[in-house]
């Protein structure tokens, strides 16, 4: 102990253990200039991570390399390259089942290659963290920025948070372990960013000292047995539920799927605390024009809001930090003055617009418009958002694009 009781012993890497609240809110921070991938490394370094398995795919490879460096430096216990994303997501499942705090990373086609594993993670109640650096999913091949893949993950039973920038990603990775490992939650956490825009660009971020770390994972808080032969096996029954056609079997499988979704719901108070809210508001609180956006689209919408203010139009951005659980109440509250809700997105399908529409149906009178849709690697200049907003309001577009 020492430092007024802030430190709680040391972890396996020799770092001083601090509480999650101290790490996220109280520890002194220093400004550094780094890429999103480097921010992943700095977060993992402070997270008492036991294991990580990697596989190359652009744009997440650098983050995976840097976790490997942490393994060499003694900050991560187990690390290797798997055979494919399907293999990797199964390997990290094994690591987690055996009681490890685990992190891995992937992107685009890798996410889809691994897909079968994500509902398995959730059903097995494994609090694995997946850092998702979104990229295009398309044929012909695209490696460009695009977050279409998040739509495929919405119903996997994993929590999903979407970071706007490297700072938010750094904090979300640390908070992600803390929330996902709560006994009454204990489901996977996907911390997503828009690949390249965040992974490959440098920005100033504030980080706490490197000699402190989160408390190590205590696997025995898991609501399901850890597979380490240290505790009694979880199941030993004469009439197993697998493939049995009877109502007990149906009820078991149905209730477990509900339970996984309920576990995500139970993450709300923890996520609200450690993320400082599931949403973030920017701009005029009474605005009739509201942008709902997540990830880098929120940054661009903020710029558009500034441009609209130059025209005398008050607008507001509501950034969605948590996609699962979805902040229904917070969004309704934050848009109660809205006449128009615009949802700009970095994908062709408009998954966030769908989420907002489904959530707001019968509860909001605002007109919801999904625009612009930017995909395949194109950027989203704020001028486009600004132009679309002016058109929706029936105003003349004065900016020259």
């Amino acid at each position: 102990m020492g430092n007024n009781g802030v430190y709680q012993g040391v972890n396996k890497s020799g770092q001083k253990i601090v509480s999650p609240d101290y790490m996220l809110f109280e520890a002194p921070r220093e400004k550094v200039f780094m890429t999103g991938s480097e921010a992943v490394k700095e977060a993992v370094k402070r997270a008492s991570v036991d294991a990580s398995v990697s596989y190359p795919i652009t744009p997440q490879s650098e983050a995976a390399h840097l976790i490997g460096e942490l393994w060499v430096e003694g900050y991560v216990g187990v690390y290797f390259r798997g055979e494919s994303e399907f293999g990797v997501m199964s390997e990290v499942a094994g690591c987690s089942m055996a009681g490890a705090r685990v992190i891995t990373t992937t992107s685009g086609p890798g996410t889809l290659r691994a897909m079968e594993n994500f509902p398995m993670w959730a059903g097995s109640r494994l609090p694995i963290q997946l850092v998702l650096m979104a990229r295009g999913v398309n044929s012909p091949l695209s490696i460009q920025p695009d977050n279409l893949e998040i739509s495929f993950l919405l119903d996997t039973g994993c929590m999903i948070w979407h970071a706007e920038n490297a700072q938010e990603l750094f904090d979300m990775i640390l908070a992600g372990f803390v929330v996902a490992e709560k006994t009454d939650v204990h489901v996977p956490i996907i911390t997503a960013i828009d690949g390249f825009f965040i992974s490959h660009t440098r920005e100033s971020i504030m980080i706490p000292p490197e000699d402190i770390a989160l408390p190590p994972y205590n696997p025995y808080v898991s609501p399901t047995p850890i597979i380490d032969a240290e505790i009694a096996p979880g199941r030993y029954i004469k009439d197993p539920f697998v493939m049995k056609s009877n109502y007990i079997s149906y009820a078991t499988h149905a209730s477990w799927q509900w339970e996984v979704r309920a576990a995500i719901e139970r993450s709300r108070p923890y996520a609200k605390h450690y993320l400082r809210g599931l949403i973030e508001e920017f701009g005029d609180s009474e605005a009739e024009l509201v942008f709902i956006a997540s990830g880098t689209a929120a940054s661009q919408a903020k710029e558009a809001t500034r441009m609209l203010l130059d025209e005398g139009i008050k607008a507001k951005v509501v950034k969605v930090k948590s996609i699962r659980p979805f902040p229904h109440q917070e969004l309704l509250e934050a848009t109660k003055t809205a006449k128009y809700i615009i949802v700009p997105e970095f994908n062709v399908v408009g998954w966030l617009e769908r989420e907002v529409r489904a959530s707001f149906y019968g509860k909001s009178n605002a007109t919801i418009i999904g625009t612009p849709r930017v995909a395949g690697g194109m950027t989203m200049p704020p001028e486009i958002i600004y132009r679309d907003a002016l058109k929706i309001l029936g105003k003349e577009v004065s900016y020259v694009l």
Partner: protein
Amino acid sequence: MSFNIYKVNEELREFMPPEILELEEKATWGNPKRGVMDLPYAKELLEEHSLCAGCPESDAFRYILASLPNPEDTIIVNSTGCTSLVFPQIALHTVHSLFGNQNAVASGIKRVLEYRFPNKVKDVVVLAGDGATVDIGLDCTLQSFFRQEKITTICYDNEVYANTGGQESGLTVKGHVFKMAPKGKQWDKVPMWQLAIDSGCHYVVRMTVSSPRRVEQAVKKAIYVAREVGPTYIHLYTPCILEIGRNSDEGLEEMKLGDKERFSFFEYMTPQAEEVIKRKKEEGLI
């Protein structure tokens, strides 16, 4: 020793089903010399099973579970198929996650257990069918061999996808008519034992389960070698009597035919494996 986890809480004893009480009282724990000769006397780690009557796979399960040298610290990883129906009835820590990822899951478990318990012996054994091992899971199987994962992989080869209704598999023999090969299989059975050797396994055996003692020997050798050296592979012929038109009491006969033909006993070991096996024999453990 972790077999303490099988000790029944005194306050709950009166509510425990008899098979749980028997696990504490009559199963063989803490004795690496346990084996198939205990079967008539000891409590088995398999509580009944849900396979077909006379299924040779059920013999394999009983012999393997009776032969594990360290059951109190053994994790068994399974895959989808007939074998997955049995797993909830095994009294050890078992995992079923997906179809074909068993060796990947086992790799993660083994590495983390080595990291978390550097001073304890924890054996990880994969038990899966031929579809899981050789078809859908071949990549994960071989890659775990390439990476020299210290796990034992046991393939139950019944030469067919039995649980889904009798489809041709990679281990079906050429010419055999099964569903999805209505003109007869067009190419050869995959020589998985040879792939295991070429992919870096240190102990490989191909056999039927007609002889319980021989299964015990193979399981113990494979587990001791995996513990110290690297991946090991056991290929067992466990015919699907249902799909080849045999009766419930004809499984043993079918395997004895296999002993003379396609599944004649074949054993391979590297010099490092040989050294471990020699030492364990001297210690009286094999």
